[in-house]
């Protein structure tokens, strides 16, 4: 499945491709145009120009039945009963009544909400209502799931359950598009990301690739002995150096331009008792902040 989209002013010539079966992160600061993009994918709004390809074909109105959308601002009919509500939303997406009822019962069991089946939404706690909303997003087994900040409003236990369910849906072949600010969850579940800022794509690629691309050549070093690590001209500089809990030394070094990792290791190993060495990749959080700020600086 390929979702391609090229756009307009709220989105300036944005084009992205979401491979089938992938968990895809759509990142960007507030007001970057994520919601506009998502609304276009859902056919809630129409692009001024450009098009959306769904499974390689231009998206048609019938394709909305293969999309499940969890908007950032959650909402359900407060006066409707839990099961009634899920069945209604499922049927709007083209399910038959009996299919929708079967699937609803199954999902309610999975989220341990069966006894709330005939309660009105307004009687539910916020967390439970969120689960009901999640169920109504996935009830019709869509090929593409679009989650806008799915974890907001969940406690850690429920967030974990949600994460498991999302990954299970992915195993079953669904493609998942995340829009989020929560970079930790991006690192955990997303395979690819696109970062949008000021209506433009500023970064795209595999999560690991992206982090490597933003690598500052920083490495964490663990030494067994108490002797501090000294910088070596032309090889590396020492960014930080302190005693660790095991009576050894923890240091952070930055390799100089063009230095191979193994040369640095060889050098440290020759004069210290090296017990740990790992590359310190920037977190997605750092990548995000750096990219967005670089952009801000460029515009100033």
């Amino acid at each position, binding site marked *: 499945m390929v979702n391609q989209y090229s756009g307009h002013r709220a989105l300036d010539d944005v084009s992205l491709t979401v491979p089938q079966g992938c968990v895809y992160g759509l990142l960007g600061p507030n007001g970057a145009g994520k919601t506009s993009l998502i609304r276009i994918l859902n056919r*809630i709004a129409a692009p001024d120009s450009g098009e959306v390809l769904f499974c390689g074909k231009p998206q048609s*109105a019938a394709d909305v*039945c293969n999309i499940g*959308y969890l908007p950032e601002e959650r*909402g*359900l*009919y407060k006066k409707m009963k839990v099961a009634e509500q899920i069945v209604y939303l499922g049927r*709007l997406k*083209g399910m038959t009544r009996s299919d929708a009822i079967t699937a609803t019962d199954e999902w309610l069991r999975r989220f341990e909400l069966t006894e709330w089946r005939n309660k009105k939404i307004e009687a539910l706690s916020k967390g439970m209502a969120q689960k009901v909303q999640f169920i109504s*997003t996935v009830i019709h087994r869509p090929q593409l799931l679009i989650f806008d900040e799915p974890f907001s409003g969940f406690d850690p236990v429920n967030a974990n359950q949600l994460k498991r369910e999302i990954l299970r849906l992915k195993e079953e072949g669904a493609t998942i598009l995340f829009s989020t600010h929560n970079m930790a969850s991006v690192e955990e579940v997303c395979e690819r990301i696109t970062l949008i800022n000021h209506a433009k794509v500023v970064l795209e690629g595999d999560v690991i690739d992206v982090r490597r691309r933003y690598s500052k050549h920083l490495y964490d070093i663990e030494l067994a002995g108490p002797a501090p690590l000294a910088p070596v001209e032309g090889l590396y500089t020492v960014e930080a150096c302190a005693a660790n809990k095991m009576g050894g030394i923890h240091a952070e070094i930055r390799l100089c331009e063009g230095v191979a990792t193994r040369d640095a290791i060889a050098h440290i190993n020759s004069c210290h008792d090296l017990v740990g060495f790992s590359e310190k990749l920037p977190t997605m959080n750092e990548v995000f902040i750096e990219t967005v700020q670089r952009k801000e600086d460029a515009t100033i």
Partner: protein
Amino acid sequence: MNPTNNHSRLSLIIQREYMSIVGRKSFIVMTILIPLISVACFALPGVLMYFNTGDRQTVAVVDETHRLFSALENNDDYQFQDITSVGAKNVHDFYTNAENVYAVLVIPANVDSVPRVSIYSNNAVKNSLSSHVEDCLRTALSDERVLSYGVPGLQQMIDNCRVNVAVDSVKWTEEGTEERSSATFASILGMVLSMLTYMFVLMYGAMIMSSVIEEKTNRIVEVIVSSCRPIELMLGKIIGVGLVGITQIAIWAVFLGIGGTAFSMAFGLSELGNAAGAAGAATDASSAVAALASDSEIGEIIEIILSVNYVQILTCFLLYFLGGFLLYSSLFAAFGSAADQQSDASQFTTPIMMIMVFALWAGIACAETPDGNLAFWCSMIPFTSPIVMMVRLPYDVPIWEIAVSVVALYGTAFGIIALAARIYRTGILMYGKKVSIKDVLKWIK
């Protein structure tokens, strides 16, 4: 998974909107309560009067003429007590000392030349007392005057001189036959139907608006429009709520039918009894005449009621009702979508309300002159025609006028729906921004 066809999706939305109102307890309660309340409003004064007979009040009378006291008849509400011996000057003392005396009536000695009496009380004197006293004294005094002329049989002559004139309005039909009709009945029917239209359009229009605003404020709308087109949601809402209105009217019609049948059955039975009484033991000539007279009067009323062309009026009522509902409810839906919360919807509803109130007043004015210019134009202009035409209909409006006005109404209604859909589409996804009418007009483009 099959792609949904639009038709079943629309009917699904209609179903939900319909059930979300009809399933509510408040709907059932209101459907029963509204007719009860309106019946109660008419019946209450009578019922209160009926139950009010319990405590009879005493009215003390100082009769300085010494002859009129006997003319005051005790009735269910008041009994009269002669205290002439107390004297007119001491009535206040008497009143303050006496218990259970409601009021004091003083009839001065010169009442036959200056017909004026006074009632004193600590409370405001009830209308029923003063009118009862007036009735009794008027009869007594005028009888006295008639007698004072000394002409034998004068009372009889005066009674014979009282003539009541009944005006029958008879309409010539196109075939030249005569048909009784009553302008009063026709105009009452027209007013009732136009009031019904007015009430329903406002009530259900407001219901649609609050439902739109509710969907918007609890954000469900974003989920719904990711499954269907906004116009489907809007139409589903309008049709669903419209069906609720029709359901309610149908329930009331059934109520009315049951009530009417019960009434006419009770009425028919008493009629039968009357006829039997008149035929069987017609010893008392006057009672037989009375029975006959009431018979023919009832016949006339029935003829008048039947003279109205119900098929035409009810068909037109449904047409105008639906057209007006579509027109106004799509406006309500559009403006509801532009409002962020219930409270700032008023800037949009005020113009709609003004048009509707104008239409209602035009309707009332047109009841007086159903053939006038105002009536003609207001029954052609779509925004006022659903109300004004209902008033005119009982007066035989030419078919072409009805046709033009219905076409204009539906044409405009569908045009407004199209415009409303554009506003709605943009409005429902607009959050946290105060929208002015100017913005709304921009969305149409």
